[in-house]
């Protein structure tokens, strides 16, 4: 019974580890597939995309140069703008803005050659179409539009224009950013609608034999008059993948920790089996069985446990993967479908499951091989894991960790590239897991050294139950190796939970402080298209009672050293007055720098970029804008800057933004209210904003949204890390059952001496409680250390004062203790219920 239970628990432990691993791998490959699909959707059959960097887009001249380039077979220009559907006369006015739509102006002839547009009804656009449009199926159902209906979209100065729906594109269409609300019209009509002569991008198709790289080198020489970005499908996929890399890396890390905890279980179980079968092994050895044969028995048992556990684990992992993907829903811009079950992850998870089980069984197998027949027959079953070599186990896992890092998914490399992304994500690239793993290993090695005094300390409150506490402690001290292994699993599981909690707390805090530090206002009014400097909106809001300041902020891309860099146009004076932006030491004079920004010719860079690109105060940055490059002097370095799409923005003055950088206006306004008047003034501001299609967002809400998204991801990781604690719980059941089994006769004697079944029950539960508290406390300490290092390492200089989430940590410790105590209920029941006579006869 005891053996069957032990095997079942071990299989469950391995299975849980493999399940989390498989879910991680599967979620990873699903994300990969989704990313590839998104990249293909976006790029279609184009070999290369020429993307405009400036708001006004690529000019007609640039477009004709591109079309002339040798090797260009098809050039499909397009103009993409966000706007709103014009309100229909019967629509009731409301203060909340409707969801925006994306208008995509295309070349009706070239576009279908590069982008598949499967229709669910109607036809594609043709060259002669002017006021005709395609819409997506999603939008058709959202807006209840049908073929032949009219869709009216708001434009620039020309006002709204109506288009007749001639075709419906299946599904969401191919623009991930549009979230399914896409209206496709002829390019000329779109340009007329938005008063534009440019195009957002040109997709290029090449004949077979012409590579994208050849085209790139050609275009780089040909277009020199305006800034642009060249993008291959692989680039798109890479940049999308980089956004998911951190999450995937952390998922794998958590899986590694759960497996690690599972390995403890395997090691413990096999050690117990070896100890228990000492006499049997002695007999076999006496009968002429060789050492390698004895070892192979143990390894075979491990193989069976590992194989069964892995199969069960993969099955459970499929379910877990479905849940994981459902919970995450999407990562960044990429929507996720159900898990992709391919043979690769299935095999990989199973192989890793079996290899880890075998690795954990090597030491017990070796020990079994060393059993001397005479000794074994004379002594019989002896101290279970006496002499279990914890260090040996740690070494095995050190080697395994290195091996795992060698095959760490390539996403880590891109994650490392994405490190400049500003610290809003916990970086878990190459070094993260290694450091974490190292710390966990070190912690495991320390466990046996601190366990005994800690058990004594933790036992103090239990002294109320004098007898039970003393017996429980003596039972824990009986086999320190086994106790240490059992606690070790709990320690690493809980350490992981606490470390993740600490990291997310810090990230959350940084996110919160970041916005407060860089935005000169408590409310943001966001526009889906840039609002020009001459637009009266700003003044109209600024004069509203209770409004202190309205500061326009524009976001755009600038070409710096061949890369697209995020830039933000700000009014320096507003930031100076509002006390925003923290200048780093030697980061320049605040007042002077902000004044210089307004004067033009100056730039303030975030510290992350300054460190990455070795930019110093006083340097001149050269931006490759058109024929004449723009040179701006670095007048300040700030700790945090305005967050952009994927990185912190460099800050420029409006004169430079509108001039050489071609920005067309503000993307949002930061509104600061007079002290104490926010609540009264808000309604008027929001109403005015709404009239101009500006969406108001409270800074707290923005912060909350960022925090909630983070929480969602971290809660998932926490839940998975808790699996490690659960595995530790299984280990606890295992150890306590074994301990009860081993002490059966002793318990029988205690019962004969008058110990009640309740006292026996209490003894086992206290044993688990003491071990659970000790393990959880150690786990919390290790977790804080690991979390602290994680934060310090991944966020570096951005780290604020270390402020761990004490409540969550206390809850995690409580969970650890509860799981331990729950784990003891079954063995305690067995101990208290067993027949005294049978216990006394137990061998």
């Amino acid at each position, binding site marked *: 019974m005891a053996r069957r239970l032990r095997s079942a628990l071990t299989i469950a432990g391995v299975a849980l580890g493999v399940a989390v691993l498989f879910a991680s791998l599967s979620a990873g490959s699903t994300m990969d597939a989704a990313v590839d699909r998104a990249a293909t959707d976006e790029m279609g059959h184009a070999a290369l995309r020429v993307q405009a960097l400036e708001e006004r887009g690529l000019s007609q001249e640039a477009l004709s140069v591109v079309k002339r380039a040798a090797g260009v077979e098809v050039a499909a220009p397009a103009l993409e703008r966000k706007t709103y559907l014009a309100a229909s006369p019967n629509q009731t006015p409301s203060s909340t803005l409707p969801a925006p739509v994306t208008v995509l102006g295309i070349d009706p002839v070239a576009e279908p050659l590069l982008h598949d547009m499967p229709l669910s009804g109607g036809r594609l656009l043709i060259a002669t179409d002017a006021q005709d449009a395609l819409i997506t199926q999603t939008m058709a159902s959202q807006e209840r539009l049908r073929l032949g209906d009219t869709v009216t979209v708001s434009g620039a100065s020309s006002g709204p224009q109506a288009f007749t729906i001639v075709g419906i594109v299946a599904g969401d269409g191919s623009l991930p950013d549009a979230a399914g609300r896409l209206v496709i019209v002829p390019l000329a009509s779109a340009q007329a609608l938005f008063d534009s002569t440019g195009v957002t991008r040109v997709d290029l198709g090449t004949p077979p034999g012409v590579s994208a790289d050849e085209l790139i080198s050609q275009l780089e020489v040909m277009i020199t008059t305006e800034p642009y970005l060249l993008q291959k499908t692989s680039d798109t996929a890479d940049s999308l993948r980089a956004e998911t890399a951190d999450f995937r890396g952390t998922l794998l890390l958590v899986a590694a920790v759960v497996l690690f905890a599972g390995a403890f279980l395997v090691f413990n179980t096999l050690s117990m089996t070896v100890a228990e079968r000492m006499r049997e092994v002695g007999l076999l050895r006496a009968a002429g069985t060789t050492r390698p044969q004895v070892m192979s028995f143990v390894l075979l048992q491990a193989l069976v446990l590992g194989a069964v556990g892995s199969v069960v684990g993969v099955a459970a992992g499929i379910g877990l993967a479905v849940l994981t993907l459902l919970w995450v829903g999407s990562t960044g811009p990429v929507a996720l479908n159900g898990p992709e079950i391919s043979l690769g992850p299935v095999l990989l998870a199973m192989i890793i499951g079996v290899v880890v089980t075998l690795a954990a069984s090597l030491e017990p197998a070796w020990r079994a091989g060393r059993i001397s027949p005479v000794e074994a027959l004379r002594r019989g079953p002896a101290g279970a894991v006496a002499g279990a070599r914890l260090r040996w186990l740690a070494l095995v896992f050190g080697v395994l960790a290195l091996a795992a890092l060698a095959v760490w998914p390539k996403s880590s490399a891109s994650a490392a590239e994405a490190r400049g992304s500003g610290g809003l994500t916990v970086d878990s690239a190459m070094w993260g897991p290694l450091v974490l793993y190292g710390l966990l290993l070190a912690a495991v090695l320390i466990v046996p050294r601190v366990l005994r005094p800690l058990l004594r300390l933790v036992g103090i409150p239990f002294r109320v139950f004098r*007898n039970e506490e*003393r017996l429980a402690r003596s039972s824990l001290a*009986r086999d320190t190796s086994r106790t240490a292994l059992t606690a070790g699993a709990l320690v690493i599981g809980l350490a992981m939970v606490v470390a993740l909690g600490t990291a997310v707390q810090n990230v959350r805090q940084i996110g919160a402080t970041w916005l407060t530090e860089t935005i000169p206002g408590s409310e943001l009014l966001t526009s889906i298209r840039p609002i020009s400097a001459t637009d009266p909106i700003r003044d109209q809001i600024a004069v509203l009672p209770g409004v202190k300041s309205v500061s326009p902020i524009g976001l755009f891309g600038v070409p710096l050293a061949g890369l697209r860099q995020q830039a933000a146009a700000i009014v320096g004076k507003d930031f100076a007055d509002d006390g925003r932006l923290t200048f780093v030491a030697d980061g320049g004079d605040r007042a002077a720098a902000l004044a210089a920004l307004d004067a033009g010719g100056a730039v303030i860079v975030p510290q992350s970029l300054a460190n990455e690109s070795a930019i110093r105060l006083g340097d001149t940055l050269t931006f490759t804008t058109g024929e004449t490059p723009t040179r701006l002097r670095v007048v300040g370095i700030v700790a945090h800057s305005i967050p952009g799409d994927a990185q912190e923005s460099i800050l420029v003055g409006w004169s430079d933004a509108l001039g050489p950088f071609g920005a067309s206006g503000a993307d949002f306004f930061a509104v600061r209210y007079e002290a104490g008047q926010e609540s009264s003034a808000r309604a008027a501001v929001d109403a005015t904003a709404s009239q101009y299609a500006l969406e108001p967002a409270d800074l707290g809400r923005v912060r909350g949204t960022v925090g909630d998204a983070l929480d969602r991801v971290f809660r998932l990781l926490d839940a998975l890390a808790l699996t490690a604690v659960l595995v530790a719980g299984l280990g606890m059941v295992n150890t306590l059952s074994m301990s009860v089994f081993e002490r059966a*006769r002793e318990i029988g004697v205690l019962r004969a*001496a008058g110990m009640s*079944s309740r006292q026996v029950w209490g003894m086992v539960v206290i044993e688990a409680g003491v071990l659970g508290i000790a393990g959880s406390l150690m786990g919390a300490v290790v977790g804080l250390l690991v979390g602290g290092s994680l934060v310090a390492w991944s966020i570096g200089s951005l780290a604020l004062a270390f402020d761990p989430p004490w409540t969550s940590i206390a809850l995690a410790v409580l969970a650890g203790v509860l799981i331990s105590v729950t784990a003891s209920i079954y063995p305690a029941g067995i101990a208290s219920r067993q*027949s005294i006579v049978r216990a006394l006869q137990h061998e």
Partner: protein
Amino acid sequence: MPTQPPVSSPSEARSPGAAPARPERDGTILEARNLTKRYRLGKREVDALQDVSLKVRRGEFVALMGPSGSGKSTLLHLLGGLDRPTSGEVVLDGEVVSHLSDRDATRLRREKTGFVFQFFNLIPLLDVYENVALPFTIAGIDPRHGEAAARIKDVLELVDLVGRERNRPDQLSAGEQQRVALARALVAQPAILLADEPTGNLDYATGGEILDGLWRSCDERGQTIVLVTHDARAAAYADRVLVVGDGKIRDEIELGRRAEHDARPLIMRLALLGL
């Protein structure tokens, strides 16, 4: 929870401190009436004991003797309330113990019985003193002070382990370990001491030490003892020997209280019985 800790138990052999008064010899302290114990072995039913009746007087030293599988240990377990008979009853110190609830049986064991087994089963991480003190700690009594401490000192003297209190079981010889087990069984001054093959795991000389200890506790302190053994040398310490075979009491041999424990008369009697 302990209703009556052993120290305050109103048993007549329990006056603290000094050696207890010698009890009357004629009063029955333990009686088995028509005990039957039936086990299921697969589909078969096996009678380990069949209709066994016996009486043990206060202060008496009784040996249950018989070959392996004769039912003597089963009988001992029933007498000590460790197991329940299929039918019949056991009366210990005026209390019917054979059909008590688990809770009451636990109380009974704590207050009225002491056990010594073949395997000493000491708690390895507790020292000699703590092992001997277990019946007190189980009852929630601090064994370091007062009467409990005095009793522990007393039994340690009886089994000749004074000075070894701080030793752990693994630092003791097998005989010493069994003496600790004996002290543990005697410390609460139980109404009856039940010993199941206490010398079965010991060599000749050490076994003799244990038997001497048992006999002394009986002779000097009036401890009632029921000893299960298949060894005539051990049985020869008893006042009376009940020969158990095939689940029944086959014979009764009255040896009487003797200062020397020569086994030869018993062996001769057994030989006459064809055992």
